[in-house]
């Protein structure tokens, strides 16, 4: 199953060359063979078998859609009715939601078969998957390296050939960065395109559900199922969903691709820069024209993001009080003691750090100097994109300045870790769609090409990505399994 895309699997299912039950068995077997990756927090084979049987019944009657019978995994940030949802936190280690997230509902309705919940950085705060209460995930290309984060389990599960696709969320790069590190494709849609209902909140003005898969074409099929208006999320956008799959055949001829010089600065590793330049040349051979552009405020993005995201996190995570659900400390002496000890015991170091930073940025006396200033910088960053998209149709550059780093390499210094997000956070601040595509290797490790589009231009973005993948095979390369 590993290398077959969703379209091929759907054909095989329809022609009865395989069944949903057989695909599920293969995925479960592969998941257990690759338990060393620690990609999953929860696997629920029993429930998955019931879903596979329903899908097979539907397919036998000639029914079903593109995703019917296809196994996949959810990032453990999406609430799943009756299935433990931890957000990789001790706080929610025993939390079993009584409802499904909108994304889970929509994918279940297509007949796709969820087999479990993938590992991640706690509350999606991290760029290496080392901040999980359930232990780090390993990169399938090199077990000594991180898979990226925060959707590290989803990226590793797809890269290792366990599932053809997995859901993810992207607040500052959490889909694109692990996709780049694991040599797969990761799509972050426009803010508001996918409902956040039932997706555990980190930073509400940035959080965005999306998909990790081998191919852009697979991402198009999954986004088609995930996207759409949902009145239960007040920031969900009510506008028609384009036909992403039909648009894939659109040629790159005449498409203007902006190359922002700020994305090729001193911090970019030589091998990454070379692979990305070669990918840009490939786009040009496919008929795109490259345009040199500037995003003059790009250098402000990390600073603005690491004020805004913690500020929103400190507010969102106030809900974990040890009273209504989640961890409660033993023998609380007072209500205050219950709050403070439950939270301190159950939140990991990075989550506590961000809550304290966010509290500081929002506190009396510092609000103007930090939060308001960060919001002004956010406007400058978003305006850079508005100006750039007057000249070009897409913007391309390296997803990350380096390939996957070693486990433990950056855990001692939060700022070094945050620097891994330098090319991805601006996209979230502006609310734009972007994709990371496999674009070659540097010293044996995958390199990602990030392509950014104007708001709601996912069809254009996916078409360009698909055309690139028709001409290249980086996305089909697979890591060797350990003996």
């Amino acid at each position, binding site marked *: 199953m590993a290398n077959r895309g969703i379209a091929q699997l759907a054909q095989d299912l329809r022609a009865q060359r395989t069944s949903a039950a057989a695909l599920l068995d293969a995925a479960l077997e592969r998941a257990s063979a690759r338990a060393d990756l620690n990609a999953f927090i929860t696997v629920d084979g029993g429930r998955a078998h019931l879903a596979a049987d329903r899908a097979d019944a539907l397919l036998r009657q000639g029914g079903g859609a593109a995703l019917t019978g296809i196994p996949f995994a959810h990032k453990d940030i999406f609430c799943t009715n009756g299935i433990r949802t931890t957000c990789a936190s001790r706080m929610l280690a025993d939390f079993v939601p009584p409802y499904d997230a909108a994304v889970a509902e929509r994918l279940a309705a297509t007949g796709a078969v969820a087999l479990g919940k993938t590992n991640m950085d706690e509350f999606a705060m991290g760029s290496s998957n080392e901040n999980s209460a359930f232990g780090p995930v390993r990169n399938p290309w090199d077990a000594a390296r991180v898979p990226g984060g925060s959707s590290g389990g989803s990226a590793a599960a797809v890269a290792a050939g366990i599932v053809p696709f997995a859901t993810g969320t992207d607040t500052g790069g959490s889909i694109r960065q692990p996709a780049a590190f694991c040599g797969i494709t990761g799509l972050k849609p426009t803010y508001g395109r996918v409902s956040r209902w039932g997706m555990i909140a980190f930073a509400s003005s940035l959080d965005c559900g999306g998909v990790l898969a081998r191919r852009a074409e697979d991402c198009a099929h999954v986004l088609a199922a995930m996207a759409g208006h949902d009145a239960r999320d007040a920031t969900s956008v009510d506008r028609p969903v384009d036909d992403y799959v039909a648009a894939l055949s659109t040629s790159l001829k005449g498409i203007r691709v902006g190359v922002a010089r700020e994305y090729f600065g001193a911090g970019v590793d030589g091998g990454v820069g070379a692979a990305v330049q070669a990918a840009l040349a490939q786009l040009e051979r496919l008929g795109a024209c490259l345009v040199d552009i500037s995003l003059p405020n790009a250098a*402000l993005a990390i600073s603005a993001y690491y004020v805004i995201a913690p500020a929103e996190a400190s507010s969102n995570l106030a809900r974990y009080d040890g009273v209504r*659900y*989640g961890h409660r400390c033993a023998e609380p002496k007072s209500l205050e003691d219950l709050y403070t000890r439950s939270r301190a015991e159950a939140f990991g170091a990075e989550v506590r750090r961000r809550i*304290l930073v966010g509290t500081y*940025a929002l506190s009396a006396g510092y609000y103007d100097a930090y939060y*308001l200033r960060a919001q002004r910088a956010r406007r400058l960053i978003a305006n850079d994109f508005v100006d750039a998209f007057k000249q070009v149709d897409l913007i391309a550059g390296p997803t990350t300045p380096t390939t996957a780093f070693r486990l433990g390499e950056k855990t001692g210094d939060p*700022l070094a870790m945050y620097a891994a997000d330098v090319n991805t956070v601006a996209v979230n601040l502006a609310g734009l769609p972007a994709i990371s595509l496999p674009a070659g290797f540097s010293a044996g490790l995958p390199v990602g090409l990030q392509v950014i589009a104007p708001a709601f231009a996912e069809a254009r973005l996916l078409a360009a990505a698909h055309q690139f993948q028709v001409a290249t095979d980086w996305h089909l390369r697979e890591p060797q399994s350990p003996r």
Partner: protein
Amino acid sequence: MPIDHATVRHMARLARLAVAEEELPRLAAELGRVLQLADQLAAAAADVEPMAHPHEQTLAWRADAVTETDRADALLALAPDARGGLYLVPKVIE
């Protein structure tokens, strides 16, 4: 911007996070480092409108009607301690 121990204690109090005395030096150093990043924003104090959200849309209105079903039992079942339809916490009023 250097952060002192009293500031860390105050933030921890506002955030309702228990912090042990021996954690203070490390937390103060880390917060100071992270906030250094934010100090780079001083240069961006331009006269642009602060941006809170990616889209300029106004919040959607909905009908003033009951849409939620009664899920009290399912929700209370998640609580660490609940009885008789109520969440239980340590005594608040002496």
